[in-house]
């Protein structure tokens, strides 16, 4: 096959979704955010929902999510995305409303808003990026940081006596009557990317069907924060993060 044949539109089997724009991403090479952004953009495109979607961006690395997906966005105060999403969805019930939050945003400062939005069964989708570290501020301990894991604020590793236990908030959310779908995914292989896409799509469809709150946790890498290469980060995640945060559906009603 010649180059010209390859780039012939008739032979294209894959294209960048129109919902994802051409703004260069600020994410570090190897970070999971870029893949998850692409999946969300593809799903919105496939659902033909570009004009019906309002995304709620967090504070953290994904604060600039609004720069990359060509949909309407609101950037919430740290941890308050589920509160903002609650109001948007209640006032625009026929729109798709999702939050995109990291572990610090969702499971530390925003725990109350997360639990109560889910407990009210708000018809929103929560995309939860769990990489066990605060990326944006330079690699401090997150609520989901593993025991003995080194961060900028746990230089000798997370000490349970001092710092408490890693918070498995997704398991907590699965216990709430208001959630209809709670799942844990990853995006480190082609197969897991495909699974994660199906999960996010299901979460979005649930929201539009009025079934309650859907939570998709993506166990993610932060190679800059973890101080590992992208490839080594994937291995470290499989070895250390997955035992604490096992992949799969926790609830699927």
């Amino acid at each position, binding site marked *: 096959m010649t180059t010209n044949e390859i780039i012939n539109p008739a032979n294209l089997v894959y294209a960048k979704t129109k919902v994802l724009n051409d703004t260069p991403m600020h994410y570090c090479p190897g970070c999971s955010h870029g893949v998850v952004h692409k999946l969300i953009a593809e799903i919105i495109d496939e659902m033909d929902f*570009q004009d019906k979607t*309002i995304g709620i961006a967090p504070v953290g690395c994904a604060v600039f999510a*609004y720069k990359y997906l060509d949909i309407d966005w609101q*950037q919430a*105060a740290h941890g308050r995305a589920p*509160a*903002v999403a609650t*109001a948007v969805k209640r006032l625009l019930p026929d729109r798709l409303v999702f939050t995109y939050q990291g572990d610090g945003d969702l499971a530390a400062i925003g725990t109350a808003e997360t639990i*109560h939005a889910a407990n009210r069964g708000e018809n929103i989708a929560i995309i939860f990026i769990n990489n066990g570290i605060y990326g944006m501020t330079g690699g401090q301990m997150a609520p989901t940081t593993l025991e003995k894991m080194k961060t900028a604020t746990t230089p000798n590793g997370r000490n349970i006596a001092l710092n408490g236990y890693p918070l498995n908030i997704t398991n907590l959310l699965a216990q709430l009557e208001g959630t209809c779908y709670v799942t844990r995914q990853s995006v480190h292989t082609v197969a897991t990317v495909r699974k994660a896409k199906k999960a996010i799509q299901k979460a979005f469809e649930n929201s539009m069907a009025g079934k309650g709150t859907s939570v998709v946790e993506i166990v993610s890498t932060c190679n800059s924060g973890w101080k590992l290469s992208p490839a080594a980060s994937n291995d470290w995640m499989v070895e250390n993060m997955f035992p604490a945060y096992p992949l799969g559906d926790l609830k699927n009603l």
Partner: protein
Amino acid sequence: MNNSKKHTGEEVRLMKGNEAIAHAAIRSGCDGYFGYPITPQSEIMETLMELEPWNSTGMVVLQVESETASINMVYGAAGCGKKSMTSSSSPGISLMQEGMSYIACAELPCVVVNVMRGGPGLGTIQPSQADYYQSVKGGGHGDYKLITLAPASVQEMADHTVMAFDLAFKYSTPALILADGVIGQMMEKVVLPPFQPRMTEAEIREKCPWATLGKTADRKPNIITSLSLQAEEMETINLRLQKKYREIEKNEVLFEEFSCEDAEYLVIAFGTSARVCQKAVELARAEGIKAGLLRPITLYPFPTDAISSFADKTKGMLTVEMSAGQMVDDVRLAVNGRVPVEFYGRLGGIVPSPDEVLEVLKTKVVKL
């Protein structure tokens, strides 16, 4: 069959200030109320829940987990161009300050009601005016202002609700109704405002082209944010805000004068203190003291020029507040030393009596 009169007539009702706010909110075409109970303003949400506006106008009323959630829901609703509001009392308003700073910077219209109680801390549930600084000097972080209305009657609780929404949308900025526990709890006659329909989505798209209603093919994505990491960009945003505040200061000052035409002594007070001071001025006049009352209705923008104009016409001024003296700073700035400005205040939830004010007026200002 008097139902239509119930909704449109100029009927006089007797109700609490808090209840008047709830009725007026529905009649303003409010789309969403988000709140958390706190004394002395809980009747606002209770009345809304009893009136069930979701069955009539479609207004959403939600009791939520905290004041932090409330104000961020207001942010979300306002970002969609919806008329949204919350209410609380002093400690709850403190919790909302981060959100109010975000809303001011994102330039979203909304209404916040503070029915003040005595502080600091958990304080008391009795009325106070000690949140003046917090309301007009910032409260949250950064250089921003809140349009601040100070109702002094149940009628004004209703009227200011309508006015606050109008001003908030006119300037795309949050408006605060700064009442106190007396105005919230007392019952008075009130004529409720006429019903306005809620804005349709077409009207929102026209009036608030920035609203996040879903990106249509004919425009770029709408993004509600207060973030700008480039200092130069952030300065530009700040300068835009400051320009808007100068416009507000030029156009929206409201105050009321009582017996001021020939006044030799001017009393300045807002809200409940103004009601007390009006009586004190009447008592002073009965004793032959030429006293007058200037009542700021907008605390921001402050009636600086009006107060300044009295500096050369009066022999002394007295500011009365239910606080340790906060608005008095702005009165002194307005007159800039041209006339002595005395202060009298009661703290922690005590309402001063007209006799107390008269005594202070006589001994500290008139110096009989």
